[in-house]
């Protein structure tokens, strides 16, 4: 702006100053945060600490392979998979209507804008608040609550995953739908189509891949989250891990970790296959 006023040819990027400012602001904000979080990575490499960690990790070898333990592991793995899958399915059922309500590009009242703009905004805001509430409370807290009500076992984990993950799925679904090309849906709404039809004909064809891979990724997260919930008694691999750690049986713990590695691999392959299918 000032360069133009002075009549100087614009040979410099007018955004350079703003970008430098943002960079400096980021450093100024991040530094005190690191101090506050007691971030001292060099402490890892002090001789005493290395020895302690090394001793801890050495206890993990060799992995446990007794038939009895592998039997327990199989049951726990199936329980974890069931918990994660049932939880995600319930979460999906809760997240889809909320995301559908929240996506601005499926809003009829925004066209024009129409008379019901305020009401539409309020509804979208309400859906957003519900999603925030659902995911604001960590799943392990929900698990603690439900373990009290339902007793020890995977049922508490299923409900905990369903609630928290509904909040995450709904928010990200709405954002994925909004970040693609939204003109097709809008054009359909402008031609009198219903919102659900506009979603299916206008937004889903472009977003299906992203939605599928995010859902599978969340399923993977649910498998991992079930460990933490196992620690509070919600069954599955987590509970097994908890027992092994308490008995200082590192070999069993490392076998469980290998199982996790395989499960994450499985989720990855599933996601890739779905993406190919929807391409």
């Amino acid at each position, binding site marked *: 702006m000032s360069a133009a006023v002075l009549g100087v040819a614009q040979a410099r990027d007018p955004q350079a100053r703003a970008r430098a400012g943002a960079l400096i602001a980021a450093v100024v904000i991040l530094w005190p945060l690191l101090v506050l979080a007691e971030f001292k990575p060099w402490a890892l490499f002090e001789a005493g600490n290395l020895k302690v960690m090394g001793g801890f990790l050495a206890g993990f070898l060799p992995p446990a392979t007794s038939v009895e333990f592998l039997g327990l592991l199989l049951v726990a793995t199936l329980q974890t998979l069931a918990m994660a899958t049932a939880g995600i399915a319930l979460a999906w059922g809760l997240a889809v209507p909320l995301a559908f309500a929240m996506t601005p590009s499926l809003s*009829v009242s925004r066209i024009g804008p*129409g008379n019901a703009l305020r009401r539409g905004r309020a509804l979208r805001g309400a859906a957003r608040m519900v999603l925030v509430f659902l995911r604001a409370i960590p799943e392990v807290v929900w698990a603690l609550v439900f373990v009290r009500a339902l007793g020890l076992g995977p049922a508490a984990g299923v409900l905990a995953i369903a609630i928290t993950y509904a909040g995450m799925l709904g928010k990200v679904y709405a954002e994925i739908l909004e970040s693609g090309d939204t*003109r*097709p849906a809008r054009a359909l709404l402008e031609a009198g*189509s*219903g919102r659900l039809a506009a979603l299916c*004909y206008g937004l889903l064809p472009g977003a299906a891949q992203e939605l599928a891979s995010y859902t599978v990724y969340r399923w993977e997260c649910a498998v991992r989250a079930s460990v933490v919930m196992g620690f509070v008694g919600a069954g599955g691999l987590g509970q097994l891990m908890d027992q092994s750690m308490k008995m200082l049986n590192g070999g069993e713990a490392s076998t469980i970790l290998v199982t996790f590695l395989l499960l994450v691999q499985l989720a990855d392959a599933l996601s890739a296959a779905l993406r190919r299918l929807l391409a």
Partner: protein
Amino acid sequence: MDHVGLVHPNGHRALRQVSLRLAAGEQVAVIGPSGAGKTSLLRVAGTSVRPSDGRVEALAVNPWQLGARDLRRLRARIGMVHQAPPIPPRLRVVTAVLAGRLGAWSTGRALASLLYPADIVGARDVLARFDLADRLFDRCDRLSGGQLQRVGIARALYQRPALLLADEPVSALDPVLVDAAVGQLVAQAQATGATLLASLHAVDLALKWFSRIVGMREGEVVFDAPAGEVGPTMLHDLYAAEGAALPMQGSGPLPRVALDAPAPTTVVPLVRPGCR
């Protein structure tokens, strides 16, 4: 439209004091340099933007006084051919065309049609008018830009609207196909008694197919006259800012092209298969 003005949220004034009345079944072309407000005019007529001032009626009702249900019914009777066809690349051609009737269909029928197309014959018939019947089950990302634009026109025709709006409907088409496509729009309007309002870039095309021409510049209607009365002086005034030459589709009188002109055979995929 009565003294309609439109100011975009960014402060740009797209329309000022535009008054325009179309009789039912009338066919009108809007011409003018780019940035004249042609698209804004069509969007106001199509109830997709609310005018900042003035009054607008579409199909004899004020859309902005209607309840949600009535507004949706009204919009189902208004068809718009967009300059860039708003069709997701992964949709099949048949689905893209059938989407034209979503306003008339129930949600259940719309969803069932995604599993098995509800009206294959209807979609094929309307595509045949654009020589695209053989592409019925291809995905839209396998079509060229011109083919996709014709699919967009086919969708609007399949909708069978009472008010048919077309925003530069032939901008991506081969010169040979342009005439045929505009001819199809006009023929549909005549056959169904629909009112047709089309913005066109090529002056000769407008003069050839339309009986009434509206000239626009800088958001204002400069002239509104029967095609026979539109003379070179009016046109040169309209396009004064764009230089001496008028935007034309072809030189001299356009050859009457048979409506079944061959489609271009080269297929340029808009999205590479490997792209996400």
